[in-house]
Every structure is written in C-alpha cells, then in structure tokens.
C-alpha cells in the first residue's frame, strides 16, 4: 500500500528516450485510481510546455498500437504495486513510478520463413 500521504510522481518515457513526461499527483488525487487511469489522465492534460508537448507526441505515437511497460510487463492495477519511496534533494518524500510507452516491433519472420 501507498501508506504515506505524499505526492506520487509518474514518468512516462517514450521508446528508449532518456527523458519522459513527468506528472505529479498530490495526496488524495491518485489513491483508488489504477496506474493506467493516471497515465491517461496525465497524457490528456493540456498545460504542457513546448518541450513536454514534444515528449507527449512521442508517447502518443508509441501508444498507438503500443503498450505501457514496467520491467518488461504491461502495467496492471494500482500505482502502489510499482511505487518507490524516494526523496528530493531537500528531503521531501514522494512516490515514484517510471514506465515506458513502447510499440513492440515484431520484426523478422519465423525461422522457417526468411527474416
């Protein structure tokens, strides 16, 4: 359980990008919601900077036929299953969940066909 009343930070990384879209949910705004719901709430927001909008476009491109993966598995259930408790440099606690938006390229053909 996310037992402490601290913000939840989620980061959605498009493909193999080193930087993702970061969103913060204040305590009371994320409990009870699935991680998938939070992600779609985040990417539905409109108040992004120009740089963030670029990342958002990349995420949407990946999610068109793609998946949200954590540790090679599709995300499922509430954020609590994935959240790590971290601290800012100032010592403030927060939960952090990072995932990748990936459109798997099922490249090649089966061994019996040509690749």
């Amino acid at each position, binding site marked *: 359980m996310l037992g402490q009343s601290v913000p939840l*930070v989620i980061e959605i990384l498009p493909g193999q990008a080193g930087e993702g879209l970061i969103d913060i949910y204040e305590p009371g705004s994320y409990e009870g919601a699935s991680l998938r719901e939070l992600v779609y709430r985040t990417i539905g927001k409109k108040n992004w900077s120009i740089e963030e909008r670029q990342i958002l476009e990349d995420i949407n491109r990946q999610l068109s036929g793609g998946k949200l993966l954590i540790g090679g598995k599709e995300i499922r259930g509430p954020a609590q299953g994935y959240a790590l408790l971290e601290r800012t440099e100032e010592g403030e606690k927060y939960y952090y969940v990072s995932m990748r938006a990936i459109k798997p390229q099922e490249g090649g053909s089966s061994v019996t066909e040509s690749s």
Partner: protein
Amino acid sequence: MLRLLQSDTELLVEAGFIYLPMVFDPAVDKEVNMGRDGSRASGRAPQLTRSGDKYFLKSLNINSILDNYGKLDPQTYEDLRRNVFNRFLCSLNPASISIDQKLKTIVFQVIPHFARKKNRLRKMRGAASVEQFLDLVGRRAGIPARFYAEAGRFGDTFSLKKKIRDIGGSTVPQVADKGGLTTAKSFHQRLLKALESKIVREAKDRLEGLLQGRDQYADLQKKYIALLLFINETGDLELNGAGFFRDGDTPEYYVYVHTGQYALKDHKGRLYLFPDCRVAVPTRGPLVPYVVEKYKHPFLWGHESFQKICVAERFIPEWKFSASGAIRALEEGINALFYGYNSSRGNGYHRLDDMRMDKNSIVFDDLRILREDPRIASGEIEVKNDFY
C-alpha cells in the same frame, strides 16, 4: 609525360598550351600558314605553329596539367601540399576553425535524447534543456584549459580572416603568361610554382568556407564551444549510456546507445540473459542499426561484430544524416533486440530454443539463467518480452 617535363627538350608555350617540336615537311609548312589564319579568325590555339625556323605541334593544355598534377606525379604533389601546410597553415590549426555539423547534431540532439537524466527530481516538472545536459557532459569530460582558450578565440573571426588573407600572397602566377620558347625543365619549375600557388589558393578558399560556418555558433556560450572543440579533437564521448565514436580516420561517426543487460524468454518461459551491447547507427547513410560488439541474438544473422539488426519491414531508413533519422534507427534497433522476439512465434533468424542444429544455427544455451535468479527477482534485469 613526367619524363618529358624533366628533359632538356625545347618547348613552345603559347595560348595556354605546350607545343612540342616536330620535323620540317613542306606540307606542314603549308598547313602552318593556313592554320595560323584560321586560328586567328576563330580565336583558338592553332594545331601547328612555328617559332623562327622550327615547327611545333599543339599537345597539352597547361591548366589541365595543373588540375591533374596530383594524378601525374602523386609524390611531388603530396610534398608540395605538405610544404604549403607547414609554411602557411599549421599555425592556424584548421581543425579548430570549424566544428563538424554532424558532431553538433550528435551532441546537441541525438545523445541528449537517449542519455538518462539523473536530475529529474530536482526539476520535477519541465523537460531538461540541452544546456543542462551539456553542462553535465562538460563536468564529466574534464576539458583541458586550452580548449577554453581556443573557444575564447573562436568568436574572433576578424583576425583569423586577416591571417588567412595574408597567407602566401593573393595572386596565382599564370604559368602560361610567359609564352615563347623554353626548355621542358625550366617550364616544369614554373609549373610547380603555379601548382603551389594553386594549392595555397584552394586551402585559403577552404579555410574561408570553414570560417563562414562559425556563424551558427554565434549564440553559443564559450563553455559549449570549448566542449565541442574538445570532442571534435578526441572523436568520442559517452554519457549515461549514450555516446559516439569516430569511424576510423574518416569524418564520419557511429552514434550508439548501450542496451545494458536484459533477458528474453522462449516459448517454454525459460530465460536467456543477454550481455550489454551498443546499438549504433552510422552518420553515413543508410541510417540502419548495427550491434557494435561480437554478439548473438535471434535478430542477428551470425555471431560477430558490426552486424545489422533485422528490423521490421515497414522501417525505411533515411540516407542523409539527421537527428530524427538517427534517433528513429536507434529506437528501431533497440526495440528489435528488446521487444521484437515473440517467444510463441519464434520469429527472427534464429529461435532461442532451436533444436535443429543445422549449419546456420546459433546456440543460445550458454545464455540460459534460472527464473529464480536474484537479478530477475529484484528487477535489476528485465525480461523484455514478457508481454507476449
């Protein structure tokens, strides 16, 4: 040709051509007289001409010899070029006059896309700027002081323009200007002087062109110019899992991203641990992904270094280097290695659990690890294709 130019043979230089001596013949005499009238009328160099009582036949165009001297006598040409560099250009350090545009694209756009930022929590909101990334690179790279000094001079194009203008005189002596009879040896000396001037002029043109390219760096801070000059010289850089290296002695590069260790599963759910490798894309097209290290994988044909990754058919590589083309190719390559292998289909060149053992088979048994491996259980190593 070279033997002729080093001999004592008498030559006639006229109208931009070398004329070689020929024996007298009354028919030639008639043709010379006719030819002179015809050529004068057309303004062209005559085929045959006379100087005193000697007859000469038009042979080689002098400008053509100058343009192709490097092929006629490569050794002398190279000596001349080296001499010009040592006398006029080495103090200017042409390498520091301009920074390769490809390098700027790699450092400012491609690497920052992949390099994992460590300071995400400080900013919390808002994408990190390229400048923040470059600051980090600068701190890690340990740039020697001389590059900051060079960066300070980088903006001073005025004095550099003057230096370039002053190199080796501004006019190229016209070897054909001094016409008339001469010996081949003497003509050869004049030719070499003209050739040297031509090399100087070409070097000046090149340097001036490079100098113009500096305009694009006008808004860049000195510390970033120092960083670019530094990596322009070192030819490689790596930060947080992404980097590049120069392709031998060429002005081309490979941009790469480390995969880190990862695992794939076969159709029975057994796991295979793949070592870290670098997925790289060349800056010279086509922009397709390779694995740099000696490596085996269902999407690589053999077990060797620099293998092309088998990617989806719909991927059409770009031919001209660009940040977007390189990023797309790198993404495609990593995507194929991580997520491309469908354990139930067994797609690719090889199956992880291939039992056929024919001559093209690659065996992956040595990569097998247990599901209970602590690195898997802790999440340190991800099973990338666990969603199939």
